[in-house]
């Protein structure tokens, strides 16, 4: 092995904390003066590093460390005590009051309840599918509310639906319209001919057709197309 190889081995031995070289390294050091000098310099270097690191950490602990810490621990205890005795119940009460306020405010601003008209038999129920549906509501902070100034009527897309022939028709309307629709439904149920009459298209009579005069065009010249580009 070359001197370089022995020196690497020496450094590894010193770095791992071995106190003195042994075996072939020791034999080489006895034979090679250069490596012996190198070894001594490395022993000195590692020794200085160790003493330097020890000096870094083994500083005298200030006498104020523990008394100051005890004072801070006592302060922390007082704070915990105050929290447990006063602030915790206060915080709990405030939280409950806030929740109650939020609940009341939301209840005040809740949209009007929907009235559901009793279902009616409809002989021409298929036509109901063509009734357009729309929604007169606005979403405020994720809560659906009736728009201000407009009646709180909600026409849900499923409010008019037919699934089976002869199934009852269900119409969802606003509270104000419910009364009138109930009466209408009752009348139609009692007088089926009224329903038929309502659904039949009105016959166009002669006098309803608006009279229009024939259009007269004078001085009209018809010219052939030119091939200009």
């Amino acid at each position: 092995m070359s001197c370089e190889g022995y020196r690497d081995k020496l450094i590894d031995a010193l770095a791992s904390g071995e106190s003195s070289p042994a075996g072939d390294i020791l034999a080489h050091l006895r034979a090679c003066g250069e490596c012996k000098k190198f070894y001594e310099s490395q022993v000195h270097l590692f020794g200085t590093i160790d003493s330097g690191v020890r000096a870094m950490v083994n500083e005298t602990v200030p006498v104020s460390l523990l008394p100051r810490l005890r004072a801070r621990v006592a302060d922390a205890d007082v704070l915990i005590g105050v929290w447990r005795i006063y602030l915790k119940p206060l915080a709990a009460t405030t939280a409950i009051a806030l929740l109650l306020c939020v609940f009341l405010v939301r209840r005040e601003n809740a949209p009007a309840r929907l009235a559901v008209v009793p279902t009616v038999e409809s002989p021409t129920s298929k036509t109901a599918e063509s009734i357009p549906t729309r929604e007169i509501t606005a979403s405020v902070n994720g809560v659906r509310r009736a728009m201000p100034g407009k009646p709180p009527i909600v026409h849900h897309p499923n409010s008019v639906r037919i699934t089976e022939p002869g199934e009852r028709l269900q119409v969802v309307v606003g509270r104000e319209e419910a009364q009138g629709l109930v009466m209408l439904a009752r009348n139609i149920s009692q007088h089926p001919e009224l329903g038929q009459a309502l659904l039949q298209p009105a016959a166009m009579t002669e006098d309803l057709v608006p009279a229009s005069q024939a259009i007269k065009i004078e001085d009209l010249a018809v010219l052939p197309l030119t091939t200009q580009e």
Partner: protein
Amino acid sequence: MRELVLTQPGRVLEGPSERESESSRAHREFEERLAECGPLAFRVAYGVLRNAADAEDVAQEALLKAYRNFGRLREPTRFRGWLVRIAFRMALDRWRSVKRREKREAPGEELEHRAIGPSAEELAASSEFQARLERAMEELPEKFRMVLLLSAIQGYTLEEVSGMLGIPMGTVKSRLFFARKQLAEKLR
């Protein structure tokens, strides 16, 4: 209504008096640990900061944090390990903020930390070498640096360091080996 405080599985403390005795017992246990762990936290912080006032602040912060979490850190080895790690990390944070502040205040200058009140060992080593050693230490990876600092603290064996950090003895030795080797390479 009686107030019940659950402290351990299967054990319930009844009423404020027993809770208070539990709290005072924890306080007493913490006080017992302080005598040993206070200096340890200070020395770890000092090893990073090399400034007694800053190291004292960091040690106090770390110990106060330990006090707040004492309920789950009662086992002595676990407590010491936790404290050492938290003190080391807080000291590093403090050191970085000091460096940033110094850079802001004096841009372009090479700044050094100096220990307050040099010990007999520091006087023995030349101040120039000490400054180079400090710079070389700062460049070491954190895990190497921590093992090196802990193993240099008086009264702690490698076994204790291994227990504190929760790593095997072989890992402690290998980290120490690489740390010393890297320092020697930088200082040669």
